[in-house]
């Protein structure tokens, strides 16, 4: 037996050893604690220990009104904060039967895709850094900074935007928004080829990722993986395609599927999604209709008694918001189905029997955001 407080413990009678990675470890991108059983360099078992950044967001939401609880979800998956807020707003609108104006729907989708690009940019930098390359991190942050500036101009905040309100968006678009967004797309289109040159074709990077962290299609389904993690194994699970919300039905985009199921497939899916997001924004940015950006709603929202569920595709996978209403001003229960939690559960399956050094690279391609796993 080993005690969790010990840094390294051997298991008597075997060559196996138990080590702790984290919770303060730079490659886990947050306070994730992994208890790893290794035999030499080979990983035998990975056991994630959660709870280091638990803020009881679900419980907190029970004491907040239907307008107030939306801001807390920015603190879950902070890299796609806007998409989290979108899921909550959709659930409340479904409960209240609010019709969202078309302009607000367009704004929401454009912002969602900008957030997705920002999130994937950061992921691209960090996955390269997990494999030992530092330069891509700076290049990715240059592009991400442009999106943050656009967000700051329109939403008033760079990371935790809180731009969604039930019935629409908080403010109208900034007059410079369309100009800036187009300038960003033009800039990004030239830089994304640079991403390919610098990292995708790199032989060291390919050898690190190809063949590691394999998960089959059946296993991806049974572990509940969603998002690029599942699509890298060939599972068609894009919520934007299967359960279209807002104006996703009207835009043309492909669901990216790779069948290899290894880390490199997940990398390719995310990189291709960057291009798809750009294409979605290009289709919508010039056609944003005029009109209201927010529907008229009552000051106090009181949904009828019942259960409501909404789902969106965040940068990491499917985020579900489940609300139980008793007819009062605050929800009786709120449950978030976060994509990171299910994706992390497949980590043990992915790295079993592989080398310890590959663990960090596999975790990088899962794109884990710890506050999302541990709400």
């Amino acid at each position, binding site marked *: 037996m080993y005690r969790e407080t010990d840094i390294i413990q051997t298991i008597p009678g075997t060559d196996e050893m138990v080590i702790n990675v984290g919770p303060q470890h730079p490659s886990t991108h947050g306070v994730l604690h992994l208890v790893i059983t290794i035999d030499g360099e080979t990983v035998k078992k990975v056991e994630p220990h959660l709870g280091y950044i638990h803020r009881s967001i679900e419980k907190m939401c029970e004491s907040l009104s239907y*307008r*107030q609880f939306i801001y807390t979800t920015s603190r879950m998956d902070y890299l796609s904060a806007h998409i989290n807020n979108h899921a909550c707003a959709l659930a409340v609108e479904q409960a209240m039967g609010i019709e969202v104006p078309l302009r607000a729907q367009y704004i929401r989708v454009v912002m969602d895709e900008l957030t997705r690009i920002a999130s994937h940019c950061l992921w691209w930098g960090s996955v390269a850094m997990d494999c030992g390359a530092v330069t891509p991190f700076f290049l990715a942050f240059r592009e991400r900074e442009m999106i943050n500036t656009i967000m*700051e*101009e329109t939403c008033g905040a760079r990371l935790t935007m809180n731009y969604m309100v039930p019935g629409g968006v908080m403010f109208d678009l900034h007059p410079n928004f369309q100009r800036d967004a187009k300038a960003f797309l033009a800039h990004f289109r030239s830089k994304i080829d*640079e991403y390919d040159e610098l*990292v995708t074709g*790199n*032989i060291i990077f390919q050898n690190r990722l190809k063949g590691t962290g394999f998960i089959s299609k059946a296993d991806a389904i049974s572990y509940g993986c969603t998002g690029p993690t599942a699509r890298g194994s060939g599972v068609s699970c894009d919520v934007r395609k299967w359960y279209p919300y807002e104006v996703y039905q009207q835009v043309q985009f492909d669901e990216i599927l790779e069948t290899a199921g290894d880390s490199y497939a997940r990398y390719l899916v995310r990189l291709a999604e960057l291009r798809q997001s750009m294409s979605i924004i290009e289709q919508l940015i010039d056609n944003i209709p005029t009109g209201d950006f927010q529907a008229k709603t009552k000051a106090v929202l009181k949904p009828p008694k019942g259960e409501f569920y909404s789902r969106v595709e965040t940068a990491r996978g499917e985020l579900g918001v489940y609300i139980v209403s008793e007819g009062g001003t605050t929800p009786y229960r709120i449950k978030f189905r976060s994509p990171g939690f299910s994706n992390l559960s497949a980590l043990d399956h992915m790295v079993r029997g592989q080398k310890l050094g590959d663990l960090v690279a596999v975790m990088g391609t899962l794109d884990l955001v710890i506050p999302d796993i541990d709400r």
Partner: protein
Amino acid sequence: MTLKQYFSNIFTGVKSLATGMKVTGGYFLRHHKEKITEQYPDNRDTLVLAERFRGEVIMTHDDNNEHACTGCTACELACPNGTIKIITKFDLTPEGKKKKALDTFIYHLELCTMCNLCVEACPTSAITMAPTFEHSVFDRSQLIKKLNKPGSKIREGVE
């Protein structure tokens, strides 16, 4: 693996590294043209923040030291964190009637998450978000602010 494959592997590997190094080398040669780093404390005078940037809640006062807050506590109810505390008093109108008015608008900056819900809730647009961000102080108690200025009163005609 044949000998030919072995050498072709080495060749493609070296070629892919050279392609990546070309990008890095390109930046090395023209990095002086595009500088994206901001020299923050030195460029404080020229720093431009977005007009909508949410830094702290302020109450706007006009030249006559008048504000638009009626003390209705809509912002206090809208705040998810209990950041705002409004203390009201009763003023006597010229007709001799009692009228509810704002006494003190207490704002806890240390609790605020800048979610903008109070500004949205305000029916008279008395409070706004200010684009300031240097809020560090040495003691937490200095972050508890009184937003209405001393001697200020409500603007005529605001109900």
